[in-house]
């Protein structure tokens, strides 16, 4: 259902770009057979409003649409420029999938990686994201080892490098399987993490072998900002700490 709404929002965005967003235009741009009731439901949900024959976004609807279009078009650029995929049909197919699933922090990383492009290869405008406005130059690494996280950070286990099989199994039997979300609660003397209702302490070698993707949410960012401010003006030690915490804006 959510995917359908996202498709409709996308169709309205494209229709508006071409100048006219009547129900016929929208139906033409939409990738599946649009029922007029869906539009009515979306009006009820305050995603769109109707002005005469034309449909327009509400503030909320526009934000949602912007995110989807951004994901779609950035994926398109990535596939074309970086991976050299020339067939626009194939690109379209991948981008259509990706627009629903790409996590937010990955989109920003792709955008930064591509140098905050303004247009796609087909000259379609790409909505700008927070990373473009901040004109970030460094893409934060998406996948890092657990050891690079700071206290209070949340992340998802992506993979565990199986240095030796029994260690992997031990972690597994605690339920630390790829895909699960963890939180770092202490870094020293041993890295202590929490997931579900379990707390584990791991030594430094183990930690280097566990690879995670950062979960960036508002709370996390504020947490990091606060920490950085606290460290300001703490001389050598502060500088050393700051170096360890870099990787965030």
């Amino acid at each position, binding site marked *: 259902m959510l995917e359908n709404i996202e498709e409709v929002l996308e169709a309205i965005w494209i229709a508006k770009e071409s100048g006219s967003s009547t129900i016929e235009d929208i139906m033409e741009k939409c990738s599946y057979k649009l029922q007029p009731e869906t539009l009515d439901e979306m009006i009820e949900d305050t995603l769109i409003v109707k002005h005469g024959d034309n449909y327009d976004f509400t503030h909320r609807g526009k934000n949602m649409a912007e995110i989807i279009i951004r994901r779609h078009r950035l994926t398109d650029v990535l596939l074309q420029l970086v991976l050299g995929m020339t067939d626009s049909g194939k690109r379209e197919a991948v981008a259509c999938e990706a627009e629903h699933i790409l996590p937010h922090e990955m989109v920003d990383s792709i955008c930064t990686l591509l140098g905050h492009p303004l247009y796609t290869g087909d000259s379609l405008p790409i909505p700008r994201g927070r990373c473009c406005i901040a004109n970030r130059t460094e893409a934060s690494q998406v996948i890092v080892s657990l050891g690079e996280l700071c206290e209070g950070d*949340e992340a*998802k286990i992506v993979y565990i490098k199986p240095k030796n*099989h*029994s*260690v*992997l*199994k*031990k*972690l*597994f*039997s*605690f*339920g630390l*399987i*790829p*895909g*699960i*979300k*963890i*939180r770092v*609660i*202490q870094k*020293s*003397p*041993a890295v*202590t993490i*929490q*997931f*579900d*209702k*379990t*707390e*584990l*302490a*791991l*030594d430094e*070698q*183990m930690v280097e072998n566990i690879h995670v993707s950062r979960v960036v*949410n508002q709370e996390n960012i504020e947490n990091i900002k606060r920490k950085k401010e606290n460290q300001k003006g703490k001389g050598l030690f502060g500088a050393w700490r700051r170096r360890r915490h870099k990787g965030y804006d």
Partner: protein
Amino acid sequence: MSYNILIAGTSGTGKTELFRLLTGKKPDEEQLSGAVHDGGHATLLNEFNPVENLIEIIDTPGVNSLLDENPDGYKLRDILLNTDVSHIIVMADGRYFRRTLALLIQFLILQKPVSLVFNEYGNGDDFTEIENGCLEGGIPYQKFPEIDSVKTFINNIIGSDNHAISDIIFENNKEIGWIHEFSPENECRTLFCITDLLPPEKCSVIPSEYAELRTKIEDSGYFQRADLNIVDHSFTCSDTLRKTDKDETIVPDVSKLGLWLQRPLTGIPVAIGIFFLMYLFVGHFGAGIVVDFIDKKVFSAYLIPFFNSIVSYIPWNIVQRLLMDPDFGLVPTGIFLAVGIVMPVLFLFYLFIGFLEESGYFPRLSVLFDRLMRPIGLNGKGIFPIIMGFSCITMALATTRMLESKKERIIASFLLMLAIPCAPLMGAMFLILGNLHFTAFIFVISVIFLQMTFAGYIANKVIKGKLPEFIIELRPLKLPGFMLLLKRTTLRTWYFMKEALPVFIIASAVLFLLAEIGVLLWLQNASQGVVTDFWGLPPETVQVLLKTIIRRENGIAELARIKQLFTPVQLITTVLIMSFLVPCVNSIIMLIKERGIKTSMIIITVVLTYSTLLGGILNWFFRLVPLYR
């Protein structure tokens, strides 16, 4: 044909409590200490049995997963392979439901009839998750029974649907179902064989078919390993059944106190504080005030005169002396020492250690000590046997099994045999050093730790091998229930006394006989070179040391009795030699059982040489440095 009910689950969920309720049997010493135990095995009490058949209850060691590669895991699999299991109860509490459910799913993969029992008195307090999860999976579940509802409880178990298989398990991963199809009724063996948990000779089925099945299971998930795929699958199913969103934010319910305890800056002062508290509680209060009271007000005032008057009716002088001789008599040195001096101190010590154990402090301590332990070839987990050693070396040697590498086990065993003073020894040590200046205590403790570090460092260099990774679970800190703690402490002290009292009596008798036929005197003369010249101690030390080897605490209690003959310096030296000497006969037997005869002999030889040399060094040290004169 009896009906066998197995109780399985994660440790600390209350399996043993249920076992105790159902069978009325007291848990044994190993079950109490959390060491690997053989799994209690007893018959259900008749009053609870609703059917004609005999119902057997089997307690199993706590595991996280059926495929755990630790002694507990091997034990559980052994029980599964060798018992005709009629039903498996999986114990759950509010906290570790995720992995409990995964474990239950692993039993379901093996087509075992299971049901879930949740313990409301255990950790955590949210049980809606458990109920929903069980309803979703069609798993029979019930609460931990009250004493008057046990019969219904058992009835429910016997009457429960024998194959509560949830479709979810096999729907997403059909390959897992092949384990059952491959050889029905033999799923355990099949699974343990394809996961390499059984030696190949025990997997006596055509190898090519196994290989085929193994490949299928290996390809059924992401990990190219049968065991990883199965564990991963069971957790995924667990998450599906619990309907948890993986993106859910983690509620940080970590107590700040727990974190402080493992930070060096705050943790080390706390650890020192706790040891000092232990000194005050066990050493000052227990070995000082309580023992003094028992000795002066009870034994010397009433019991000894009372026994003397009874014994005086016995016509033979030698029997009189065997019983009441103040030096070697069975009653004063055997029974009174054990009951009057060792028991109260031990009780207080077990109470203190039990409190720390229950509160969840030890894992924090092991995190704190992890890096400090590295130079002596152990990681944070090595602190467990060491701490256990402060209670009883023999028990501690059994817990070295939880260390992963052979190297760690040898080092831990060596340090236990060499340096660690056990509870009775410590108690009596407090008793002896309590009368000296309090720095004597600090001196003795520092020498022990210094030597432990030194010996461990050398052992680490000499013994080859690599240190395994350090992973430890931190259970939430809690205040232990006082009544339960008291019960466990009493039980532990009881087990100890039951075992130790006969040895005390026999040791006294043997020494008495040796003294009668003159062997003791001969030994004293023979070892004079070492004892009086090299160590600078009075000749009576020989009888103390002899008793020490039979039972450590027996020896030091002997020392307490004849301490007027010793100068303070001699007392300190003797206490240290005793602490470094081979602990006791029991520990030697346990060492041979755990490490094998060859390694044990090497360890014992090294320990004997080390302690002899140390005694000499101490003697020279005290001659040069004017301390405790």
